[in-house]
């Protein structure tokens, strides 16, 4: 482990007093990395192993090595492809929505306001709820007969969750409601870090508001905003509880719901592990792109 880390930062002038920088660095970094390795490597390798077998966790039948058969079968299954594209569209809609609402709210809140702390706390309430409960109650809210939404908005019997064309958006709306506050809070932290003197300079230059926003605000907030978006994208890809509780429309079936059905209802441990690895690779690729952008944004 220690080999991973090179010699100490020459800038240090405190090496002679207290812990040396090397010690501090090792003490700070190694436990976490080691902890994550120990905690993740076993289950990851285990499932990787499963993914090449016909193992069913529910049966004691002998386990056979099947090579890439599970991967091939999963990739040849049109239902999987349908749920993949549904998920991709869901991630786009949901994360974009969260970004717009969350960042928009942060821009509105980024000024002296009465009861700002209370308002922020109230706005964060949705994300404090358990996803299963959120799914259940939004199902209640969306119900065409006894739901409050159609009634309050005077919409008539719109069948949000059982209409094939609406269900996915209904779930996305719930997700946006729940997670915009996450983007909001992080954006707010980023916005408040923008040095005031930059704005002052801009106003002396008579720079337009839009110009100020795009040339000063956005670049400075970008890194923390990207971190928020990275995490929301990863989570949206894995969305399961909310969608699973709310609707059974095939048009709104997400890849994680399919995965859950395979892994825990049908106990197809082998194929479901293969599917999980395919999802992992996709998320890795997408996240990688984001991280590249993040590094670029930081270099600025």
């Amino acid at each position: 482990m220690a080999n991973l880390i090179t010699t100490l930062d020459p800038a240090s002038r405190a090496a002679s007093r207290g812990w040396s920088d090397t010690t501090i660095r090792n003490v700070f970094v190694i436990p976490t990395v080691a902890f994550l390795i120990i905690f993740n490597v076993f289950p990851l390798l285990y499932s990787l192993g499963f993914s090449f077998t016909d193992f069913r966790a529910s049966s004691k039948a002998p386990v056979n090595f099947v090579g890439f058969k599970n991967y091939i079968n999963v990739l040849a299954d049109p239902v999987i492809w349908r749920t993949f594209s549904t998920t991709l569209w869901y991630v786009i809609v949901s994360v974009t929505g969260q970004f717009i609402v969350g960042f928009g709210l942060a821009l509105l809140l980024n000024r002296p306001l009465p009861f700002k702390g209370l308002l922020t706390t109230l706005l964060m309430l949705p994300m404090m709820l358990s996803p299963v409960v959120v799914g259940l109650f939004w199902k209640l809210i969306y119900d065409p007969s006894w739901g409050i939404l159609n009634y309050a908005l005077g919409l008539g019997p719109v069948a949000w969750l059982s209409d094939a064309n609406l269900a996915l958006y209904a779930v996305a709306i719930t997700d946006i409601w729940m997670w915009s506050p996450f983007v909001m809070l992080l954006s707010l932290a980023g916005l408040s870090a923008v040095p005031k003197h930059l704005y002052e300079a801009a106003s002396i230059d008579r720079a337009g508001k839009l110009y100020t926003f795009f040339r000063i605000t956005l670049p400075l907030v970008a890194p923390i905003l990207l971190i928020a978006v990275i995490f929301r994208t990863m989570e949206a890809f894995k969305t399961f509880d909310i969608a699973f509780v709310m609707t059974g429309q095939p048009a709104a079936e997400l890849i994680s719901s399919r995965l859950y059905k395979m892994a825990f209802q049908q106990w197809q441990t082998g194929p479901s592990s293969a599917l999980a690895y395919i999802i992992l690779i996709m998320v890795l690729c997408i996240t990688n792109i984001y991280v590249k952008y993040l590094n670029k944004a930081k270099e600025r």
Partner: protein
Amino acid sequence: MRKTMVSLLAGASFLALNSMAVHAQELTILWAEWDPASYLQELVNEYQAETGVTVTVETVPWPDFQTKLFTELNAQGSAYDMVVGDSQFLGAASTGGHYVNMTDFIAKHDLTKTMAPATMKYYSEYPGGSGQYWSVPLEGDALGWAYRKDWFEDPKEMEAFKAKYGYDLAVPKTFKELIDIAEFFHRPADNRYGAAIYSQNAGDAIVMGVENSVFAYGGSFGDYNTYQVSGLVNSPESIEALEDYRKLFTFGPPGWGNAFFAEVNTAMAQGQVAMGMNFFAFFPSLVNEATNPHAANMGFFANPPGPRGEDFAALGGQGISLISYSQNQEEAMKFLDWFVEEKTQKRWAELGGYTANAAILESEEFRKATPFNEAFFQTMFKVRDFWALPEYAELLTEAADTFYPYVVNGEGTAKETMDKLAATWVETLTAAGYAAK
């Protein structure tokens, strides 16, 4: 790093020792969270009072029940001594070695004689006809119907119905009549609808509902002994039954595409529908004034026969099984000895459980005890069940995925749907090593 590992392991082994302490005088039963589990807890409290053995009924939410149970079983966990499991679990749990074979126990207590035959066949025996038993029927259940007596008996409605359909408005004598009645009462403009049925694409909801009509129409979900599927799942009878189920669905409340037992009862309690299909276990709340303002107007009937006189209904319910990894098997067996005694079964029925004991079911006392017990009694002698193979869950999700687009979204035809299901099932069964055709 080594230190971290050592201390982690030390902590872990300490905890392991802690959790391995065995309490012989305690038994734990796993079930889903619902009222019958509360009744069972009350029943076993009496066992505790008699014997001093503490029995705890531990519950998890219904949608997670299967997941929780099989995760525990697959890892050979001993956290639970017994489980009250669904009939479809039998194949997976018995061939997987998770359940203790109860054949001797059943013989010792002569349960094949004292329990209603269908409950032994479906809750306990696996494979079908083998004479090998894996559980004691605990909670009998099946699909039945609730209806609005006041609407059915309204003279104006009766007259209008007779004029339109040429026969008297009454409890339907056939499934076709049931559809007529649903159509008759379907008046969206007045927020009144014909019938509330299962439509949820999760667990066994929509499949149970379709099963109910398929069985009544003389169709089938395949031959569970020969694994023949083609020509049975997509037989003309099965196709007609699915078509009519879809028809019935269109007479449901708006946006009825995500309904299971709770939604059906809610629609009944809110006075939205004329009829509701549900498990008998969920009917008590419909006759409870506090939960249903229309409780006084509730009537109940057994699933009516199909157009050719076949008379069947879809089975629910559970048996109690002994888990192979339990460290208290002897104690658990003693408990089951007590549970199958006639007086215990009687008490179980009094507390609100649905006993499977045939003598109690047939008794006047039981049949008159609630407005739905008579219908329950009739139903329990004409039930059929789904596949119970270890691969049942695949068959179940495939069926739900296939039915849903047709029943709820109206995509394709009933024939296409059933043909597709037959083909899918042949493929799945063949892949699992059965000689399916």
